[in-house]
């Protein structure tokens, strides 16, 4: 995408020149996004949680694995929220605030890592399918339809069960299954963009396919990919929490929100609500953040849509 400011057309037309700088498409989108209060709230939620994850050791007083029952005795078990333990403690006397803050690291890691894999696979295959058409397109579209048919959660569970336990493999498994929606979006966009004159011109000038796709087509299909990836982050984070809730996700004692909810489940019924409640709010806030931001980005990047 050309980021150089363009000349103000009014100046060129001889209308009284004003001091306004030309704005790029991205700047325009950002200004539109900034006006959208809900999207800004989403961006705020996501930013706060990312910062909390990065600076976790500075925010929390306790290590997430530190079991206070060894130092403070049984009194440290299942303490309700207090000034000392904002989110209370669990049965091992671990500070739940620490565990929720550190849990953000897992959720964000899995979201970013697996989404990166999905975007790479999805953009590559989608662009190839859209650009070349014909049998290549048929094959890739078929693969997209096949992948779509699989129940996401069960498929990932089966992969995780079949593969040796490893966090990297889990990221990869989710990423490898989740690319189809991105590929579908990219394919559709490429199909329409490749008919444009500037692409024709690039091809006519003898541009290599790879170069034409990378330099002329992809920058123009980037917007929907960004939207799809942002909205997809919410899905992946939700998926990880479901995996951990079922006991097939991140292995303890590493804190993960879904796992905390599952662990606190039995205590929820006996009145010790904090163990399950706070991690749930954490998941909801992060997913809500990505959803609001994704919705906002869609409206901002594609002004033709209603508003």
């Amino acid at each position, binding site marked *: 995408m050309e980021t150089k400011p363009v000349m103000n057309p009014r100046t060129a037309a001889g209308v009284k020149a004003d001091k306004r700088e030309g704005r790029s498409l991205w700047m325009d989108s950002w200004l539109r996004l900034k006006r959208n209060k809900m999207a800004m709230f989403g961006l705020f939620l996501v930013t706060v949680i990312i910062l909390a994850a990065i600076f976790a050791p500075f925010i929390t007083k306790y290590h997430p694995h530190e079991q206070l029952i060894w130092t403070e005795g049984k009194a440290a078990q299942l303490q309700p929220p207090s000034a000392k333990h904002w989110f209370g403690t669990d049965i091992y006397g671990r500070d739940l605030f620490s565990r929720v803050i550190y849990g953000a690291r897992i959720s964000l890691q899995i979201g970013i890592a697996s989404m990166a894999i999905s975007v790479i696979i999805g953009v590559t295959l989608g662009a190839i399918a859209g650009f070349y058409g014909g049998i290549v397109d048929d094959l890739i579209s*078929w693969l997209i339809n096949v992948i779509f*048919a*699989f129940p996401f*959660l069960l498929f990932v*569970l*089966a*992969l995780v069960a*079949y593969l040796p336990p490893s966090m990297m493999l889990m990221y990869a498994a989710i990423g490898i299954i989740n690319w189809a929606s991105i590929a579908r979006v990219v394919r559709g966009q490429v199909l329409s963009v490749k008919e444009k004159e500037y692409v024709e011109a690039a091809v006519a000038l003898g541009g290599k396919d790879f170069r034409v796709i990378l330099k002329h087509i992809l920058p123009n299909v980037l917007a929907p990919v960004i939207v799809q990836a942002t909205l997809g982050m919410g899905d992946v984070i939700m998926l990880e929490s479901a995996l951990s*809730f*079922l006991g097939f996700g991140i292995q303890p004692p590493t804190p993960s929100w879904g796992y905390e909810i599952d662990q606190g489940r039995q205590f929820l019924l006996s009145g010790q609500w904090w163990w399950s409640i706070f991690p749930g709010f954490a998941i909801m806030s992060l997913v809500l953040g990505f959803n609001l931001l994704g919705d906002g980005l869609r409206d901002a990047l594609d002004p033709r849509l209603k508003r």
Partner: protein
Amino acid sequence: MSTYIIKRLLAALPVIAGVIAVVFILTTIVPGDPVRLMMGQRGDPATIERIKEDLGLNKPLWWQFLDFFRRALTLDLGKSYRNNMPVTRAIGQRIPLTAKIALSAMAIAVIMGVTLGIISAVRQYSILDYGSMFVALLGISAPTFWVGLLLVVLFCVKLGWIPGTGTGDGSWIYLVLPVITLGIRPAALIARLTRSSMLEIIRQDYIRTAWAKGLSERVVVMKHALKNAMIPVVTIIGIQTATMLSGAIVTERVFSLPGIGRLSVEALINRDFPVIRGEVLFLALIFVFTNLLVDLSYPLFDPRIKYDR
């Protein structure tokens, strides 16, 4: 019309073939020897060899693939490693409960989602619009299992309206919370989609014409707009119905229900590969067929479709 149906049916076949192939690949990448896994430490080499022979595991890979393909088409999904029950029967025993919950949840989700979506679109930017869209946003952002737990605490523990989790004496009251839990997400998705789809339609010229003719709001909205706005909604209903069956995994865990979700979890814990494989295949096929049904229903909403494609 019949050419349309045949075309759609034919289009589904390669997808079904692909689904079976992917499931087979999933099976063959299992590290280690499946027979060893199933026998554990017991099992002398001779028995293991005999079982391998029985399961056709000594045959070449292409033979196994064709064999698996043939069996899958006849819904012969093999037998559970654990209790030797045919996988098809194991699924058959568990599916009625899951289907009952999922279909009820979908029915409620469609009624609520479409209604809220219409109201939000017709009264855009009203308190009602903002309110229901905010609730819908929470609905798609909150993890299903967590919402389920909150409902249990509220209705079973605090209010005591519902006796508890599990199936109890088989009364319908035990299914109320699972149905609500499972229905929230699709209801929210349907509401959002109905709203945006309706908003697009009510700006069309023919809707302006309908208003200009002096038709009542009810007729314009329900007859002229809704029918045209339904196609994306029906699509998401199809996708969500199939997705819900796999979403049952967490819901059934929260409510201790013995449906196919629990079957999957049990199979995963026991590394009962034929059951896992069978379920993945089964649910994927359900997805293909639900979407086929959705495709076939399009002409009901837009008669042009059957001539177009």
